């Protein structure tokens, strides 16, 4: 079997007095789509932020495409695309200008003609010259989706992609996940929309209190969640 795209060994992350992530060991095969499920505060976002090298693991280590998250941070950043909670936007500037800044730093084409279709795809073409400060949360999410679409990379991490989006936005995310899957990108989706995402995922990871509660097929995990949504699942089964 080809070497896994993402290999995490005992990843833990501490925020002062609290351990947000405890001893997470995962192996994500290349080209797969994985759902990261779990209640609020179960560590979903922390896991994705660690894998995206936005924050460093306190303990343990992980590699993406063989690059260690801490030692080869820049290489990892070259192969991981993150759609995070934070919109990563400059509020005083317009949507188009924000995209142009990102494009210039990526050293790719950044004039309006190239970026406009991207904004059109996420439904912001009409508002491309308005400052992001006037945007609603949903429109900011659309801008960060456009930002993710700037590059197709081997790994794409989607943190609560459906949050703040309207019905049209939902289909936008579904298409995004499908396109990424077809293009062979390894996708990790952290989301509460378990019944919507689980069917199109190869496998799912359930996080509970920062630990891996169980790993199984998408549908198995979603039943588990629906069967006892409130009760904390039994201790670590492995």
């Amino acid at each position, binding site marked *: 079997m080809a070497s896994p795209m993402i290999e995490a*060994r*005992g990843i*833990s992350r*501490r*925020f*002062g*007095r*609290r*351990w947000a992530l*405890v*001893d997470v060991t995962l192996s994500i095969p290349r080209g797969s789509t994985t759902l990261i499920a779990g209640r609020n505060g179960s560590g979903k976002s922390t896991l994705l932020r660690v894998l995206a090298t936005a924050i*460093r*693991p*306190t*303990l*343990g*280590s992980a590699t993406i495409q063989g690059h*260690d*998250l*801490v*030692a080869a941070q820049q290489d990892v950043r070259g192969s991981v695309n993150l759609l995070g909670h934070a919109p990563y936007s400059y509020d005083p500037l317009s949507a188009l200008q924000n995209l142009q800044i990102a494009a210039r730093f990526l050293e790719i084409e950044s004039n309006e003609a190239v970026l406009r279709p991207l904004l059109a795809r996420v439904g912001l073409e009409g508002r491309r010259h308005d400052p992001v400060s006037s945007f609603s949360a949903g429109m900011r999410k659309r801008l960060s989706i456009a930002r993710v679409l700037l590059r197709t990379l081997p790994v794409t991490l989607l943190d609560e992609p459906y949050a703040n989006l309207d019905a049209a936005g939902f289909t936008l995310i579904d298409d995004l996940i499908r396109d990424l899957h077809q293009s062979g990108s390894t996708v990790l989706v952290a989301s509460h929309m378990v019944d919507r995402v689980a069917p199109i995922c190869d496998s799912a990871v359930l996080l509970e209190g920062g*630990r891996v509660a169980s790993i199984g097929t998408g549908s198995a995990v979603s039943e588990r969640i629906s069967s006892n949504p409130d009760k904390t699942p039994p201790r*670590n089964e492995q």
Partner: protein
Amino acid sequence: MTSPRLSRRLPLLFILVGAALLLCGSYIGLFVAPPERMMGEVQRLMYVHVPTAWNSMLALTFAFIAALAYLIGGAWKWDARMEAGIEVGVVLAFLLCVQGSIWAKPTWGVWWDWDPRLTTTAVLLLAFAGIIALRRFVDDPGRRATWSAVATIIAFADVPIVYFSVKWWNSLHQLQSTPQTVSSAFHLPLRMNAFGILFLMIGWIMLRSRIAQARLESELAPPPAATSFSDNAHATAGGHR
């Protein structure tokens, strides 16, 4: 390392030895040593002023080294030692400014004579007090440690520049008395006090870094129970974050 019983007492031991040395040195300086021809009795202040100057500089140098060690190595105990070095350095710098103005009044008739070394100490006092304030206003232990280490390095690199700029700015004023101009009869109390404050300072820094260490332990959750710590120790890449 030394047994816990002794290591608990070590800082107090240093402080006592330092205090004893300081008392003897001051006694000799005050009552035994001859008064200086020109400045008379006031010159006796030097026996405590000059050692304080040496040691405050030493404490801040220690803080600088600890800051470098933290940024490179990344062990929390260096952050605790840096915090200790900064606070002790600030206390000694404050003491130095107080002594300096007491020395200046009878000698120059003003409370502050813009002597380059003294003015540099005052600037240092404010710079490192600012770093203590920075540590108070940042909650996350990791950020607080990294930022105050960076600020310490920057403030320390400024010391020679401040000294020269004040010296040129005030060069017409007077010639400063450097230790060579002091005859040998005065050296004994000077040296005793220097070692006295040195031991005192070492005791202080040990005690203060333990306080910082205890606070860090209360701020940082211990490693999670699930990971048996031994197998994780080697795998720790970002170990200290």
